[in-house]
């Protein structure tokens, strides 16, 4: 068990006119090596939630354990936690600042106090993991394309060799090709290393295709928690809170209504196609 949250509450600007109860009694466990998706509407508390995972913001009340240790305890090493739980923010390319990509990726390991050689080994490894082309290693990060910038930024976090990688909307603002590439790369990463991955997104298709487990956030509360099939079977409830199941879920339901004997729990296009073919063969 890697991360465990107990009754986490978070209130923004308490005692002012802008007070907002962003998280309400969140209980959550993220086991080692899991590929977890978090979905929810804008303002549902997703981003607030993931900033708790590496102690960037401190819960107003509740407990957070990392490998059994309460991170809010006096003397807990938060810097060590941050190297273990790597957090990639939305639009991470805006955090790039060095004169070239390679030095920027070295920033994380350097902060961990590693030697120059070790930093470079890790930076190279991280850049390779995200599929960043070697010819751009020594270019200014500001001259790259959107997709490459984002790769460089993700590598900047990976270079710390985290045990848990948290990504907040890693595909926001990318074109369909860039989006698929980044997501495939993340899946590849998850398979290659024993890292747990937490993927925040509001695209049901992306989530359904890649993750093992989905958490649905709504108004600061955990609404649903389960495998994609379980979660998307509640598609009416999802709609009520302004979300939706993947489009194939609707197609399967419509097909069934039209009399085709298909199961309705397919969540990806491939599964749906297989299921439809099967129904014709039976």
């Amino acid at each position, binding site marked *: 068990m890697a991360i465990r949250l107990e009754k986490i509450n978070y209130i923004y600007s308490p005692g002012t006119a802008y007070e907002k109860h962003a998280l309400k009694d969140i209980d959550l466990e993220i086991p080692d090596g899991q590929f977890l998706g978090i979905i929810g509407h804008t303002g549902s508390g997703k981003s607030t939630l993931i900033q708790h995972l590496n102690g960037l913001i401190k819960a107003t009340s509740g407990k957070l354990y990392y490998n059994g240790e309460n991170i809010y305890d006096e003397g807990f090493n938060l*810097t060590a936690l941050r190297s273990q739980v790597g957090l990639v923010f939305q639009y991470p390319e805006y955090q790039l600042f060095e004169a070239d990509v390679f030095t920027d990726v070295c*920033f994380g390991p350097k902060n961990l106090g590693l030697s120059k050689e070790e930093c470079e080994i890790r930076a190279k490894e991280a850049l390779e993991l995200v599929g960043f082309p070697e010819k751009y290693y020594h270019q200014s990060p*500001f001259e790259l394309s959107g997709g490459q910038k984002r790769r460089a930024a993700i590598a900047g976090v990976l270079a710390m060799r985290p045990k848990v990688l948290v990504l907040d909307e890693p595909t926001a603002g990318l074109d369909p090709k860039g989006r698929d590439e980044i997501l495939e790369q993340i899946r590849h990463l998850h398979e290659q290393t024993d890292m747990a991955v937490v993927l925040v997104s509001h695209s049901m298709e992306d989530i359904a295709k890649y993750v093992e487990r989905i958490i649905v956030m709504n108004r600061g509360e955990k609404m649903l928690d389960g495998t994609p099939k379980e979660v998307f079977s509640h598609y009416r409830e999802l709609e009520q809170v302004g979300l939706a199941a993947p489009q194939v879920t609707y197609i399967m339901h419509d097909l069934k209504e039209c009399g085709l004997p298909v199961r309705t729990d397919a969540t990806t296009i491939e599964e749906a196609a297989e299921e439809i073919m099967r129904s014709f063969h039976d």
Partner: protein
Amino acid sequence: MIRDITIGQYYPADSVIHRLDPRVKIVCTLLFLISLFVQNSLLGYAIATVFLFWVIHASKVPLKFILRGLKAIVIILMFTVVMNLFLTTGGKELVHIGFLHIYEKGLRTSVFMAVRLIYLIMGSSLMTFTTTPNALTDGIEKLLHPLNKLHVPVHEVAMMMSIALRFIPILLEETDKIMKAQIARGADLESGNIIQRTKAMVPILVPLFVSAFRRANDLAMAMEARCYNGGEGRTKMKPLVYRKRDRAAYGITILYMVVIVLVGRFVPFQIWIF
């Protein structure tokens, strides 16, 4: 973390004061500030206190928000009080410790100075608490309009002000985001000596500047795309028009000023307790 910083903040509430025309609030605030300096008697301060607290009450802004603004001037306030207390001579000598003397006049001046400064901040922060930055710049633009004749680019100045104000929360949020992103990458912003700390700011300042320029560029494009070409011939969606309540507010403030001036002229110092 950085969200706690509040500059020129607005306190949303539904009150008469919030609904007043920004011009009224600017002019009346100025009058109030002047009123603090045209008289120097206990009665005058009592009237100013009643007036100020009455307006604060009407504005529905909690008193503790207004008092919070005083934190910024604590040092100036203490400096003024101490300087006045020890350096002003006149009247009876009250205390004598070594080379320090406190005279009656010094005590009086320092107390009055403190009250003036506190009311000055309270009065002006009441204005920013009840007026959105945009309304404020609108008001300033309209008030300064006559200066156009002297070829002062009033509209452009007001536009720059409103853009600058608009960008404060955006850049604060951006700074917060970048700081968090760098802390997540293990950046240490809080320990070390001054040189290390300054160096630690580089990973925050570079992305912040890049983003500020990008945003400025985007905004300029968006404004040009909507044919913005300065103030000439530009009309307002919500033109400022004086209403009954605005006239009433002017009336009350002028009445208050008259009372204060009369008090200043005819009530002598002697009402002071000492």
